[in-house]
């Protein structure tokens, strides 16, 4: 059984302009100790997917359906108290902006020890010792001198580490990280990604990492979900997505990326911009921007189906397999040819 199994998740927001279908039929699963990367451009529904799983949307304006099975139990229908016990102990979340989970008016040591005592029966001094251990584990130099500092006294990268320490307080089985390195410089990003992988080995947590950066996904994910306009358009093991992508939007994403390992004169350009989620296009949501569009694409929404010879790899596209294989091979070969 998967640790987390999300099936046909839908999150609709009632707004003054109408219903925003922010997540519209999303399915994926995460295995114990593995890393799943959700990648997509801004507004594609990545954050709302996670907030829904964590039960963090406002009840009043949100319509949710589908299933999110956590160790077999549906988080979406679970009682508030049971959910609260799982959240923060079994599932923890970190955000792009560390200040969303840190309180600016309290010292980090105090916040850590309180979080530890919330879920465990330990004395204050035991909790403090554990807090020091965690700060050390996330690579804060001389933690005994930093534990009584306030969040604003830490640099961006160090604050991100403090937040990770906060998330690790109860050895969660799943760490959800929403754009954890987007606000950081590359060298700091590399430090944080390395840290997350090291901690995963040590604590055995599964990680769900959300990012718009295909490079980050390629570095850390075992499995990849590509989202476009509130839906999953492709998913599968990381090397399959990067070596044999089967969906024109994924080709566009890969081709539009300037990269260190190849030189191209012009980048692949996906024309236009993503659709409004108030009123998404009929048929395949990508069809107005797709260079391969056919009549069927305008009428029928393609199902997310396994690639014919690869049952772990799914794509939602009406193109036939031969065309998809040929175009994928062309794209990859193009990038490789220019690599030297």
């Amino acid at each position, binding site marked *: 059984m998967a640790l987390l199994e999300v099936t046909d998740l839908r999150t609709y927001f009632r707004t003054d302009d109408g219903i925003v279908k922010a997540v519209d039929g999303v399915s994926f699963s995460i295995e114990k100790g593995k890393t799943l990367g959700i990648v997509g*451009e*801004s507004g594609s529904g990545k954050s709302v997917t996670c907030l829904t799983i964590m039960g963090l949307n406002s009840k009043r304006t949100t319509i949710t359906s589908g299933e999110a099975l956590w160790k077999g139990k549906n988080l979406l229908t679970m009682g508030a108290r049971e959910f609260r016990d799982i959240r923060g102990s079994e599932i923890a979340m970190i955000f792009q902006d560390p200040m969303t989970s840190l309180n600016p008016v309290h010292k980090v040591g105090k916040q850590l020890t309180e979080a530890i005592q919330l879920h465990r029966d330990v004395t204050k001094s035991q909790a403090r010792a554990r807090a020091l251990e965690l700060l050390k584990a996330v690579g804060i*130099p001389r933690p005994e001198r930093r534990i009584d500092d306030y969040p604003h006294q830490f*640099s961006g*990268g*160090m604050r991100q580490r403090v937040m990770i320490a906060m998330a690790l307080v109860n050895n969660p089985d799943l760490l959800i990280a929403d754009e954890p390195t987007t606000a950081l*410089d*590359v*060298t*700091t*990003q*590399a*430090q944080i*990604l*390395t840290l997350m992988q090291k901690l995963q080995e040590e604590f055995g947590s599964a990680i769900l990492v959300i990012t*718009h*950066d*295909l*490079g*980050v*996904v*390629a*570095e850390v994910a075992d499995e990849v979900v590509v989202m476009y306009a509130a839906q999953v358009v492709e998913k599968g093991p*990381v*090397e399959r997505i*990067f070596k044999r992508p089967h969906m024109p939007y994924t080709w*566009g*994403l*890969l*081709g*539009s*990326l*300037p*990269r*260190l*390992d190849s*030189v*191209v*004169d*012009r*980048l*692949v*350009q*996906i024309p236009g*911009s993503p659709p409004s989620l108030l009123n998404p296009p009929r048929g395949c949501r990508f069809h107005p921007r797709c260079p391969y569009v056919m009549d069927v694409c305008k009428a029928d929404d393609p199902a997310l189906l396994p690639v014919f010879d690869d049952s772990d790899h799914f794509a939602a596209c009406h193109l036939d397999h031969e065309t998809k294989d040929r175009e994928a091979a062309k794209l990859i070969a193009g990038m490789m040819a220019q690599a030297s």
Partner: protein
Amino acid sequence: MPFGRRDANGQPPLEIRDDELLVVDDLKKHFAVTRGIIFQKQIAAVKALDGVSFRVREGETLGVVGESGCGKSTMARCIMRLLEPTSGRVVFRGRDITKLSRADMRPIRREMMMIFQDPYASLNSRKRVGFIVAEALEVHRLGTEAEVKRRVQELLEVVGLNPEHYNRFPHEFSGGQRQRIGVARALAVNPKLIVCDEPVSALDVSVQAQILNLLKDLQEDFGLTYVFIAHDLNVVRHISDRVMVMYLGHAVELADRFTLYEAPKHPYTGALLSAVPIPDPTVGRNRKQIVLEGDVPNPINPPSGCWFHPRCPRFREGHCDVEEPPLYPFGDDHVAACHYPLERWPMSEEEMRMLPQSAVG
């Protein structure tokens, strides 16, 4: 220096080649840190930019990379004279513009324009797009009303916007479209030089690709010269002919884009390169990285000697922390400020083993 060999500002003249559009010489900008409300007393200086020199040839793109806070925007603003440099020179088309008066600057402002990172913040949200683009023309009084309108519509078309959208407000456009408006406005006066300060950093990859392609096309069509600032090394390599790497207000390395990325000499360049995630799961995971420890120091209180030494994996005590390295030449047009430059790239297994354990990832 023989008497008389000084320019109008009392500085020794620079030798400038005909094809050099922009020459920046030992440019410094120190911000005063003051204390007190009535009697402000300077208690320290932020050395945001501390002696940067480079030359940009007509029609080329000089890329500038470095992590946040290393002085990229400060440098851009000093070049544009939006900030007064503390010292140093900016020579544009052979003329030292560092000390020019407002009036003398006016005709030059038309020849150098700037594009900013945040297209929204840099556009007046209460003005219509037509006005925003025309403003540059009006400021420089270029044409009658009808001519201005025609020119603006032409510009909107050039940057890939619908000329019919002349009367819309900025908020009616997406982020990518707003950046196109910023580009149209910069192009309005037929500038020679455009200083782009992180123009694609806030955009999604597919939109980023659209804008990068647009900037390349415009360069070809109008013979533009760019100083292109970004923190994304992939983007900078894609768009630039030559690349300058900055660290804490200093240029630490400058070379053509192939040399810089394939044979970097400065360990900081190496660390930056090895930190960039590679969108290929087989390549990215198997390479060895140089991992930098700690954070960029504060430019109020910079380290002694080489400013990079506290984080440098190749640091040698008694040398790097004492003597500031000059920009040493390494072959044609390649300079790097390091006493112990990288011998090869990627580093050999042997060299990796010599690094402190904490620096290898």
